[in-house]
């Protein structure tokens, strides 16, 4: 056994690096994927997959590129890629968001917020993937226009335009849902 203070440092550089990146960005990645897919178990799987990809790609990471944008671009790639493949299976499963409706009796106020949130979530799943990605990165992950452009490989003006279109589309969908909801609840 070696003498001295080598005991503390029993993780290799690579292990330390990936743990550091994970601690810093797991929430961003998870949120993005959760919003994008609407499935908890899928979000868990794909978040893990994202960081394994990050680990494998670390040797080729260009450190002049912003780390956060890099990690999220891998998340986006993994999500869109895998989600496309898995979509078919999930068509037949209840979505996690839908499962929430059937939870126990709750105060009506709480139920109302839940229901409203579900409306937003449902609407989000209805817009096309590019809108969804831009919307989540900007609104949920709170990335700047520049960062969003880096993640998606867009120009900044494309990010702006796409974001505005996504919002418009979401609002239209929400308005329809809200009307439906009002109609149902008054009947």
């Amino acid at each position, binding site marked *: 056994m070696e003498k001295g203070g080598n005991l503390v440092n029993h993780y290799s550089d*690579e*292990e330390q690096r990936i743990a550091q990146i994970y601690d810093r960005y*797991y929430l961003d990645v998870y949120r993005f994927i959760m919003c994008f897919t609407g499935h908890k178990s899928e979000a868990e799987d794909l*978040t893990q997959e994202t960081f394994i990809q990050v680990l494998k790609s670390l040797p080729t990471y260009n450190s002049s590129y912003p780390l956060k944008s890099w990690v999220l671009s891998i998340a986006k790639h993994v999500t869109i890629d895998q989600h496309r493949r898995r979509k078919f299976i999930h068509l037949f499963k209840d979505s*996690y968001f839908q499962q929430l409706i059937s939870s126990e009796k709750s105060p009506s106020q709480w139920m109302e917020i839940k229901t409203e949130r579900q409306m*937003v*979530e449902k609407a989000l799943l209805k817009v096309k993937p590019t809108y969804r990605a831009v919307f989540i990165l900007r609104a949920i992950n709170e990335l700047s226009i520049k960062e969003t452009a880096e993640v998606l490989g867009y120009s900044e003006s494309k990010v702006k335009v796409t974001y505005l279109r996504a919002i418009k589309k979401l609002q239209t969908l929400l*308005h329809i849902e809200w009307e439906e*909801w009002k109609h149902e609840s008054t009947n």
Partner: protein
Amino acid sequence: MRARTEQEWIRLLKDGDELKPDQEYVDQTRKKLLYEARKLRSKREKKKVWRMIWPSMMAVSLAAVLVVTVVSQTEAPKPHSSTYSSLETASKPSQIDKNTKVFIYNTHSRESFETKEIAGYNRTKNVQTVAKDLGRYLKQQSIPNTIDDKDYVKILLKKDMEFKDIYKLSRKSVKKAVKDYPNVQLMLDIHRGAGVGEREITTTKIKGKSVAKVQFFVSNSHPDYSENLKMAVELDHMLNEMYPGISRGIIQEKKDGYRNSLSYNQDLHPGALMVNIGGLENTLKEEKRTAKMLATAIKRVLNRHPN
């Protein structure tokens, strides 16, 4: 309930519990990543070593082809005296066979046969397996022998040494063996050729069966190398006499000019030789047949040199 503004429904979405991962999941994933990082690291290190083995073995074969000096058949073999053997009579562990005449080891312990990838490692079909077979066949010929089954590549990886230094590792064992076995006459470092697409060069047919060809390598980087060369010549002749075409001959470094600082442990004993048995594309079966024939040839050669 009323229609919400944009900022409001974004807030609604963000505050949802669904966007928070379970703490247990977060911890599990962290652990999994650390585990994957460790796995990846050891994989990379292995690859690094194979990447280093590969060119160096290629270099050896290439250098061999370029500067080969096939030893002329006129050099008459003379009986050699074991001048290198130590006369030390210190006490030794009981399992050491003091009668050992042939000491066998594998510096490149992981050179394998029948692998899926080039320069891959096959745990059950490699030069160490061939060494064991050779030992068994020698025993059948009642030649006392000892096999050093140290996995030098593994030790190298563990010690994080450079591949070129692997002979330093086997050197220790050979040195010790010279002391331990006063009657030793041959110290064979069994290798395997590394060239791709060389199956035709490394294979021949003996009695209708395909067998791996043998090739000797003698280093001239030490003053007494002619002793080693004589031994190689004897074995080469005996092999081809008994099994025509089975030996590809002897390769040597260029006589003068370039001198490799590596002696491949051949300076330690006049019977220390490097032997290539077959190549990358031979099967273990072909290797075994050759091991058996080599054992028979060794028996005959050693009979000429009773010590």
